[in-house]
């Protein structure tokens, strides 16, 4: 559905943030993109959504194809209209607007009737959001804000949703709820999901396929269960070695090289 081929992103014509990234998101799948801070995950998502330009970033090589059409040069609103919608990192709500106004803006590219329908759908999915619809969104709790952010994306009638660290700064219980919703949307509404996470454990539980990105490159990919079984992933992303959790005291990073770096 979405496929990237050798995408290269450069900031300020000098700093290469993403290099030769190729990935594939099949229709109906949940695909995870894992990586630590600064690996280039968010940059990649911004590149796909076409919003790098104001930050001085640019796709300088490779192709981004969505539903068979090249969208590497498309404007952000065009990309949203095609059904490729991002839930940005840290929610990024319109803080001064009410919850409902946030949702309405999510449906900016859609017809009036579709917007009304979308509101009903989001409120049915998140009763909590319905309760707080007239409140200023900036004052909501983190979990509620994340629901509004997801709801806002759903208002645009996406075929593929890209979630940038939905778990960021949320309590474990809230995160579980959010992930449940994502899985439900995927199962019941056939929504395709590209999930970006630092929390590899969580992401590989719901995803069917995963990519690992480091220093702007994809270093490993595979089916989720295969990744979970991989020694390197276990050690560096899941914090396990030999199946048992180990004490941080015993971690000696220099002893063990990541195999994909050699």
């Amino acid at each position, binding site marked *: 559905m979405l496929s990237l081929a050798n995408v290269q992103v450069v900031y300020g014509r000098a700093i290469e943030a993403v290099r030769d990234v190729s990935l594939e998101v099949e229709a109906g799948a949940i695909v995870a993109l894992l990586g630590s801070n600064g690996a280039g995950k968010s940059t990649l998502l911004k590149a796909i959504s076409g919003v790098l330009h104001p930050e001085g970033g640019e796709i300088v090589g490779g192709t981004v194809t969505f539903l068979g059409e090249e969208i590497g040069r498309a404007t952000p609103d065009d990309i949203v209209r095609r059904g490729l919608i991002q839930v*940005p990192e840290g929610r990024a709500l319109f803080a*001064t607007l009410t919850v409902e106004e946030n949702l309405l803006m999510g449906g900016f590219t859609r017809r009036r009737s579709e917007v009304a329908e979308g509101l009903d759908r989001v409120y049915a999915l998140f009763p909590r959001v319905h309760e707080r619809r007239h409140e200023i969104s900036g004052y909501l709790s983190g979990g509620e804000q994340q629901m509004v952010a997801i709801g806002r994306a759903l208002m645009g009638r996406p075929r593929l949703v890209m979630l940038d660290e939905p778990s960021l700064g949320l309590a474990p219980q809230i995160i579980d709820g959010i992930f449940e919703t994502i899985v439900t949307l995927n199962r019941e509404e056939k929504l395709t999901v590209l999930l970006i996470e630092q929390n590899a454990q969580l992401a590989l539980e719901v995803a069917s396929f995963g990519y690992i990105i480091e220093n702007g490159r994809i270093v490993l990919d595979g089916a989720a269960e295969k990744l979970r079984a991989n020694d390197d992933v276990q050690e560096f992303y899941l914090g396990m070695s030999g199946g048992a959790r180990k004490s941080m005291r015993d971690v000696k990073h220099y002893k063990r090289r990541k195999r994909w770096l050699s």
Partner: protein
Amino acid sequence: MDFLLLLVSTGLVTGAAYGLIAMGFALVYKATGVVNFAQGELMMLTAYVSFSVADRTGLSFLMLMALTIPISMAIGLLLERIFIRPMLGEPVFSIVMVTIGLAVILRGLVILVWGPDPAVFDVGLPDTVIRLGPVPFYPAQLVLVAAMAGVTTIAWIFLRFSRIGIAMRAVAANETAARLSGISVSRIHAFAWMFSSAIASIAGVLFAANFKLAPDMWFQGMKSFPAVILGGLDSVIGASVAGLVIGVVENLFQGYVGQGMREISGFIVIVVVLMVRPYGLFGSREIERV
């Protein structure tokens, strides 16, 4: 008592002009984050264009406005396209500098085209004095106040309920998120310039009708600045209310303190208000969740 009433009533008239100009400032600032220093010049330019239209056609006041407003919107769009759009993504300060440059260009342009001498702008309003209680008004004065009330109401409804209006607030709140929601930010910026230019033209024509049409009219833009700050910079409604406040305060200072006080009284009000409320009377505070 009569003296006070007179000062207040004429203050409200001048204040209405300030309010209209200030709303133009606030609208562009709200949507684009840029203080458009050419707002006063835009008002002057559109007033002169309207003057030329009136001169050629001799239209009635309402017809003249019906023609002036769309023309001004086109001018606003054009200026945004030529001067502001290419600056997208540049630092705000650079864009503000561009508006200052634009202001100087427009001042020159007006003198170049229409000459340096003041002109009498007959907008087609009668000049019979109307008495409201003890206070006499010219029709043009009442129209100015009514126009400000009307524009304020329309602006409020527009920003509160219309799709484009909410989108303007959304862009102001988070530009990247707006892009990710499919809002074309550059189109919203263009809309803001268009509407702000329309408001400028209403202010310009009515100011010229009440006072004079001269190439130093742009200075009213600077004089409206206290109203913009007082209103809170990003509050369109606040700007209009603050305009009235500044207009009345100026008149009272002039009447009771002395001629020289008029020019600085607005700024004194700002200093006092900003000490108490740094975000202006109606401006939005940073939303911070603790």
